[in-house]
Each structure stands twice: as C-alpha cells, then as structure tokens.
C-alpha cells in the first residue's frame, strides 16, 4: 500500500493518467467469450502481464488490477471460491509488470447483485464479501483501491466501507451513468458524489457507459461541488452494435483530443474504459501532461443526499423545511401501525411531505414497546428507494444512529449531537465514519443554557472536537433551542439571538418550530410569525409540518422579503399552486368556460357540455336544474344526454378524445342517468336490448369488460354483468334465466380465450340461440369470426355491434 499523502501530493502537481480497457484487450489477445476473465488472465499470465505493462509503458501513472469480477458472488458462477488467492495473484502480477513506472490500484467491480434495499444481498454480507477481495488485493501489494462501474450507490458504499474497515489506502470510486445523466438505478452524479466523498472516498467520478463527449458534462457538474479529486474514464465513444458485435468507434487521436476540455473542466485523474487501447492512453498522456490540475473549489456548500438526488445549497441562501411528521409522539394511528410492524402511514407521510415542499424528512421511531433500531432500519429501507429527500436520523440512541447511518444509501443528517460528554464521545466518531452531517444541540452535561452566549460557547466546544475529525462548519447545523414562549417570555428572543450568533459564526441553524407556541391558542399564527422572524435573523432550517400552508407561505414570503428569492420565482411558483383561484379542479375550469350568454337554455347546454367534458361532479346539479325548470326526464335523456354521449363516441373515433376522456364522459352520463332513472315512469327507460356479460373462467382481468359494460348501459342496454372468472355453467344458467339478446364474453389471456368456443358450444347444446360477442386483449377479429362470435375492438365499437345485432340504430 502507498501512503495516501503520496498520492495526494502527486495529484496536486499533475493530472494522473489512468489505464485503458482490460476486457476488450483480453478479447483481442484471444480470451474466448463466456469465460471468467480473471481465471483466464491467471492461466494466461504472460498475456495479462503484457497488458499491464503496455499501459504502464503508455504513460499510466496508475494501472488497475484485472480483478473487476473477482468477488465472491461472480467467482461462484464459475465454481471458484478462492477469492483472496485470485485477487492476490492478479495484484502481484500487476506489481511485477508495473515495476516503478506505475502504481497499482486494486480493482473492485460490481458483484452482479444489488444490495438491500435495491436487491437481495444484505448490506453487511456485501461488506463482508468485498472485504475478502480487498484483503487479497492488499496482500498482493495493491497501492490503492478503485471501486468502479457502479450503478447501485448502496453497493458502492458497501465496497467503500469494506476498504475503509481494512485499510487507510487511497480509494477511488467511480459510478457509471447512462446517457440521460443518471445511473441505471436513478442516482444523479451529484447525489453519488456527495454520498461518496462524505463516506471517505479520496477521489470520485465516472467511468464506462458513454464516450468522452457525454462524460465531459458530468465532470463539469461534479467539479463545482467536489471536495475530492475528480476521475473520468470514458469509453472509446458511444458503443454501437455492428454485425451483432459491440463496437467502440473512437480512435486514439480523437480520444486524446479531449485532454484539453477535460483538463479545463477540472479532471484530476483520467484514463479510458471499454474500447480504449494502450495507444489511446499514450496519446492522452502526451496531451494531458501539458495541463495543470485544478484543485477542488473552496465553497460554502451544505450538502446532503438521498439515493436519487443531492440537496446542495449555498450556506444561508435559503430556509429549508425538515418535515417532522414521521414521529409517533402524539400520533395514535402511527403508533399502532409501528407496533404492528406496518409502514403504510409512514410511506404516505413521506410522500405527502415531499409534495408539500419539505426538503428533508425527519425519521423518529422513539416510542415505548417497539424495537427502535429495527423500526428505523425498516423505515429507511422502505423510504430510501422511493423518497428523493435526504433523511434526518432523529434518535437519542447511538446504536440506532449507527444502524441507520450504516445502511442509508445517501448522506444523512443526525438529529442531534449535544455537548454532553458521553454523546460526543459516541456520536462524533460515528458521524465522521459515515460522513453524516449533524445538528449540534448546544446542551452540556446537566445544563440547558438559556442565554445565547452560553449556547454559543457550548457549540464552539463541540465544533473544536468535530473539526479534529475532519468536519467543517458546512457540516454542522446549530440548534437554536426553541423554548415555550408562554412559560418564558424572553425565550423566543434568545432563540433569535442564537440564530444570529450561528449565522455570524459561519454555522447553519435549525429550530424545532412548534415548541414556541406550546399551550397557546392559534398556534399556526404564532408559529408562522416566529418562522418569519427567525428567517430574518438568518435561520437556515426549520423542523416543521410542511402541510401547514400558513408556514409555507411564511417561508416563501420571508425569502422574498430578505432578498433570497431575488426574482420572486419561488414565491410565484408556490402562489400559483396555492392561490384560491387556482385551487380548483377541472370543475372550476368547466364552470368558467360555460358562462353562457343570456337567453340560452343554460341547463341543457350544461348537461351536454358536462357529459362531453366528463365533469362528474356537476352533472347532478345540471340535471336537477333542468328538472326544476320543468324538463321531462325522457326528453332530457333522449334529446340531450344520448346525443351528447354519441358525440363523445365520434370524438373518440376521430381520436380527438382518448380513453380517459371517453370513460370520464361515460361515467358522467351514468351519474346523470341515475337521477333520471326513477323518474322515467313505470315503463322506465326503453331498453335497447338485453346483454349478458362475463369475463371467462380463469381470467382475473376485467377492467376492459367493465368499460364496455359502462358504455352499453349508457346507451340503453340492459346488461347483466356476471363479473370475472365466470364458469361456463354459471353463464348458461344465467342465460336461461335472464334470456339475453346477446351474450358477450371477454378474455385477456390465450389460455382463457379458449373457453369462449366451449361456452358457445355449450349454449348451442342447451338450445340457447343468441348471437355472441367476443373481445379482450388477445382476441382478434379473425379468431372471433372463427368461433362464430362478433368482434369489437373497444367500448364504442361494442355498442355499435350490439346495436346492429338487435336491429337498433346506434
């Protein structure tokens, strides 16, 4: 292993050139398809050593060991379990070949399985598995480590933790991004960088998937927020398939021409991935040696991340809401659910708070009667894949905090670490190990300070200790300690002073907002006023309920008034979503657009418009209004509603309407008809004919059938709907009793479709002589014809076919 500092020193003087592809070079030198590359490389030692050497000779300052797939799970596919041995051998070969020309990076690739919560491999099992590989590489003399081509951020974390728990070696982590700029699992480059650099990656970046052109933009994005050197290893162009083979089209000199733009973008280590050769690397090395590396930019960025996205903000630039809802205190329903081990309320709360505008989500599962650690882990595993907001781990137990930090596939915020000695001793090292940010609670042993001065002193003490572990002020948010104003009149003022102290001393600040109004009436007013005052004092975070619209108005108005929302765009966007005039649904739009000129028959036009627009909510009012005005039920139906729904059918046929519009209209018609039906007199509505409908036995799909039934009823058919998975016997029995004019059958699967001719044959045998209709996803016009049934492709056609079968005119 080479001292980390040595590599950092190298990086301050030059852009280090990495190696090029190993896999494609092995193939060129005769490795057959489908074999284990690592085992083949050992069996063909001289070939592998010549590849290593060719890159060292070409100018690579660091070469990667040929151990991309040399992990336990991949090797098992080839019946091998001597993980340490294989890794050690390949690292030794690399060291021999590289000599003094290049350092050797022990290469760790993906294990071929995803790690929980994205896959079936338990996180700690993954760490254990990678440790075997790390140990082998270390024994073989690897100078540093590289974890590459990762698309699962959790797997990258597991591998990085595996390295860090064994050695202090310099470790590079590169993820692979699709052309759309995210990993296949949906992680943005920023999210990955924030997570990995906090967790202790010494350099980070991207490799594979795209050519240099596409990767350049990623390097630019990463450089702006990186605290570590940036690494890029693009393919030799975007791969394409030619004659069934994957081809990388970019030649060595074109590849090397990207040296300047990458250097300007701030790359610190660059090599090539699939399709690149020693010549690509030689030309790149010649070219890139002309440029000096750019150091990481100094900045005041506060950075957190979820598995999907990063939350990166200039310190003090905005007020962020930490959604407080996921906390069982005082919530009976949530308590009950957590006790049962269910999480549907938690999921709903997370999604709701995200929609309401929270930027972070507080997770607290502290309540009597449950295993807090197990519950928090379960909540994280449930929310991490679906929630794009970073999580805040809210627990007083170091055990719980550690379990949560270990498995959270992002950069979390700890709520909180106080100045109490035992808390600091346990929690600060945990925060450092997992790279978490933390809320600093300015409380000391047996002391809850009431003055902002004393709070500042305690905060400074904690910070001094944290700084020694690598934390900066960007990583810490000081809790300004909100006390209840009803019991202590100066408490709120002291909190504001603490916020100002934090801001003046370079810290972010946070308050648990609602404490301030405890015991008072009209708490929302007090809370939102206090939030505005705190924002004016420089508050950066508030733990609050984002569903309280008044608070969110205060947040946005404060940003506007303190010059933090310069073009008012955030305020206007919030306003556009929450103004009364905009808050309506389609109903509001409909009401506005149907302001009729005087003298027209408003209700009849409204009924027609209502059906065509599919506004179910208003149809009852319109029909009732028409009745009040003396409209005759049969006339309303025949002269307004039926023509309207016929018109909808035409709009659907001409593709001016698509399926949801057709159904919304049909449902509106149905709702209107429900009012008229009892008024149509003894004769009721004149039936167009009787249809017996069923989805055949074995088939559980019935949404299509339900649509057709809805349509047919609207057009005046008397439909008996037997539902789904209906046996032939039941259909025959119903046919005898109901005496339909038509029997309509639906099937969605090829296996169940074959029930249709059986039913038709049964009906014939029982002397039931009525026409059959057939439809459903797998049924074709030809097939329906072949079994003697009438086909229709959708609800509109079904109405027409049914109508013609009984001699109607629709």
């Amino acid at each position, binding site marked *: 292993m080479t001292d980390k500092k040595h590599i950092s020193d190298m990086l301050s003087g030059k852009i280090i050139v990495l190696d090029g592809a190993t896999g494609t070079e092995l193939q060129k030198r005769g490795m057959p398809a489908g074999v284990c590359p690592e085992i083949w490389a050992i069996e063909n030692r001289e070939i592998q050593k010549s590849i290593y050497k060719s890159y060292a000779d070409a100018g690579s300052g660091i070469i990667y060991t040929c151990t991309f797939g040399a992990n336990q799970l991949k090797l098992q596919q080839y019946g091998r379990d001597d993980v340490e041995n294989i890794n050690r051998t390949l690292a030794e070969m690399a060291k021999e070949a590289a000599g003094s020309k290049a350092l050797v990076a022990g290469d760790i690739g993906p294990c071929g*399985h995803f790690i929980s919560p994205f896959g079936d491999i338990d996180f700690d099992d993954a760490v254990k598995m990678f440790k075997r590989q790390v140990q082998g590489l270390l024994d073989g003399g690897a100078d540093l480590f590289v974890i590459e081509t990762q698309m699962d951020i959790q797997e990258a974390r597991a591998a990085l933790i595996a390295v860090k728990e064994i050695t202090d070696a310099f470790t590079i982590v590169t993820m692979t991004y699709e052309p759309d700029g995210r990993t296949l699992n949906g992680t943005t480059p920023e999210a990955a960088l924030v997570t990995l650099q906090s967790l202790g990656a010494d350099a980070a970046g991207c490799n594979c998937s795209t050519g240099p052109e596409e990767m350049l933009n990623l390097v630019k994005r990463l450089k702006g927020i990186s605290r570590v050197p940036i690494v890029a290893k693009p393919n030799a162009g975007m791969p394409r398939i030619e004659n069934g083979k994957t081809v990388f089209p970019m030649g060595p000199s074109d590849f090397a021409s990207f040296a300047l733009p990458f250097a300007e973008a701030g790359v610190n280590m660059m090599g090539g991935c699939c399709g690149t050769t020693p010549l690509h690397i030689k030309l790149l090395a010649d070219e890139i040696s002309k440029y000096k590396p750019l150091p990481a930019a100094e900045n005041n960025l506060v950075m957190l991340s979820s598995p999907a996205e990063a939350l990166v903000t200039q310190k003090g630039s905005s007020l962020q809401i930490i959604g407080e809802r996921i906390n069982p205190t005082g919530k009976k329903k949530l308590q009950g659910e957590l006790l049962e081990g269910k999480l549907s309320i938690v999921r709903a709360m997370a999604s709701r708070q995200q929609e309401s505008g929270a930027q972070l989500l507080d997770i607290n599962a502290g309540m009597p009667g449950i295993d807090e650690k197990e519950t928090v882990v379960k909540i994280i595993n449930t929310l991490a894949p*679906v929630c794009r907001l970073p999580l805040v781990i809210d627990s007083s137990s170091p055990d719980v905090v550690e379990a949560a930090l270990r498995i959270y596939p992002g950069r979390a915020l700890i709520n909180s670490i106080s100045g109490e000695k035992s808390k600091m001793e346990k929690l600060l090292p945990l925060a450092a190990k997992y790279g978490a940010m933390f809320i600093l609670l300015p409380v000391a042993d047996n002391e809850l300070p009431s003055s902002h001065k004393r709070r500042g002193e305690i905060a400074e003490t904690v910070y001094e200790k944290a700084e020694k572990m690598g934390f900066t002020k960007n990583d810490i948010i000081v809790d300004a300690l909100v006390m209840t104003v009803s019991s202590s009149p100066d408490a709120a003022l002291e909190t504001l002073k603490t916020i100002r102290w934090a801001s003046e001393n370079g810290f972010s600040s946070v308050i648990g907002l609602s404490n301030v109004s405890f015991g008072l009436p009209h708490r929302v007013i007090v809370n939102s006023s206090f939030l505005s005052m705190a924002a004016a004092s420089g508050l950066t975070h508030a733990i609050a309920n984002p569903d309280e619209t008044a608070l969110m108005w205060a947040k946005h108005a404060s940003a506007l008034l303190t010059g933090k929302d310069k073009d008012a765009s955030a305020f206007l966007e919030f306003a556009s979503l929450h103004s009364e005039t905009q808050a309506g649904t389609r109903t509001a739009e409909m009401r506005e657009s149907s302001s009729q000129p005087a003298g027209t028959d408003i209700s009849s036009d409204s009924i027609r418009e209502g059906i065509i627009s599919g506004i179910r909510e208003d149809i009852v009012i319109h029909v009732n209004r028409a009745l009040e005005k003396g409209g005759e039920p049969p006339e309303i139906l025949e002269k307004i509603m039926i023509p309207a729904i016929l018109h909808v059918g035409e709009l659907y046929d001409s593709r001016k309407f698509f399926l949801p519009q057709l159904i919304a209209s049909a449902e509106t018609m149905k709702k209107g008809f429900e009012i008229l039906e009892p008024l149509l007199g003894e004769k009721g509505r004149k039936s167009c004919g009787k249809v017996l409908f069923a989805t055949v036995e074995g088939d559980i799909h019935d949404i299509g059938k339900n649509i057709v039934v809805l349509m047919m009823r609207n057009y005046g058919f008397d439909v008996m709907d037997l539902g789904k998975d209906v046996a032939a016997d039941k259909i025959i029995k119903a046919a005898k009793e109901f005496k339909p004019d038509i029997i309509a059958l639906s099937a969605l699967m090829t296996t169940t479709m074959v029930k249709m001719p059986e039913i038709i044959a049964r009906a014939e045998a029982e002397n039931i002589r009525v026409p059959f209709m057939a439809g459903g996803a797998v049924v074709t016009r030809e097939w329906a014809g072949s079994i003697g049934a009438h086909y229709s492709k959708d609800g509109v056609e079904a109405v027409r076919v049914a109508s013609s079968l009984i001699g109607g005119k629709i």
Partner: protein
Amino acid sequence: MLRYINNITLRIDYSTIFSALGYKRKSTELPDLFRKEIKGWIDEALHAVKLDAVTARCEISFPDDESVLLSPEGSNPEGSQPETIRIASASLRRFLSSSSKALIMGITAGSAVTELIDKYQIENMTKAVVLDAAAGEIVDAGFDYIVSLLNRELARESGRLLSKRFSPGYGDLTLNAQGDFFRLLDMEKLGVTLTDSFILKPRKSVIAITGIVY
C-alpha cells in the same frame, strides 16, 4: 442462482402512458387541467408500485425441434443443483435458436397498485383506467431496465441479450409453461402466486424469457 432486484426505480415518461391510453399528439384535444389530473394519477400509480424482479440465467439445449431444456446456472443457496426444466414449444425453440444461453425474468408491480385499481374501478373508473395503464407500462419499463442492466454486464463477456422477449401465451408457448417458469424463479418470494389457470397474481406480474448471444 436466482438474482433478485428489489424496489426498481424507473424514470417513466408521462407520454408513454398517454400513448398507451390512445393519446395522439396531433389529434387529441385534452384540456390542461384534465391533463394535469391524469398526470397526478400517474404519479399516484408510480407511488403505489413496488417493482420487484427476479432473474435466472440458464444453459439451454435443444433435444428436438419442438422443445427447449433450460438449466439454471450455479447452485441453489443450500448447495443443491437447480432443476432443469423442459419446455415444449417449437416457437420458443426457434426464438432461442441462435442463443447460447437464456435469461428468464419475472417481475411484479406488487399488490398495492392492483388494490388501488380495484378500488377505483368502483369509485372512479376513469382514474382506474389510467392507473391500470400506468402500472402496465411500468412493468414493461421494468423489463427494459433489466435488459439494459444485463446488457451492460454481458458486454464485458462480449455477449448481449436478444432485443425481443418471449412470454407464455406467445406462439405455441402455452400459459402452462408459466407454471414451470414460476417455480424455477421461485416467484412466491416476490409475493406472487399462480392460479389454477396459470395466471400470475397480483395481476401486474409478468414472466418473460430472452436469449443471450455471444
């Protein structure tokens, strides 16, 4: 060895789901608020879906012109050798004729989204139809995700997947084969069950097979 992929996260275009519902960019006239409402329903479907998948790589051989033998690679977690299955289907035999191996995939959108669809079939059929289409497209996109994942890995072995997939119900591959694939993939671990008529439950669950070529 089986490989599970849980909580697959997808970025899905609204336009894909709109198209599945018959939306035509040139002709469909859709008021903005209705469009917004439908997008909200699609988001709701995305929230309700829990997309989990399982895959198995298999050695293939063709004992005759009308059947395929599939033997899963690697061993079961307890060390035993997985069972070889024989699928009688000339069309699958033809589909896989140029492949060296096969990949069997099972995927499910979970029961929450189907429960939601059933609930809305009673309360709001329009919404149910949108949720149903969204869930269907999400499952389809899930297959695309697995294919790109596997292709990325296979590229390093100079292999790739066929661009098409084959599912029970296509050609002469009967749904009965679904039972064999279902057992091979141990889909019960994903909370999926098989009905007597070889249909997967919850409804938004699909099995497909494709070839690996080198």
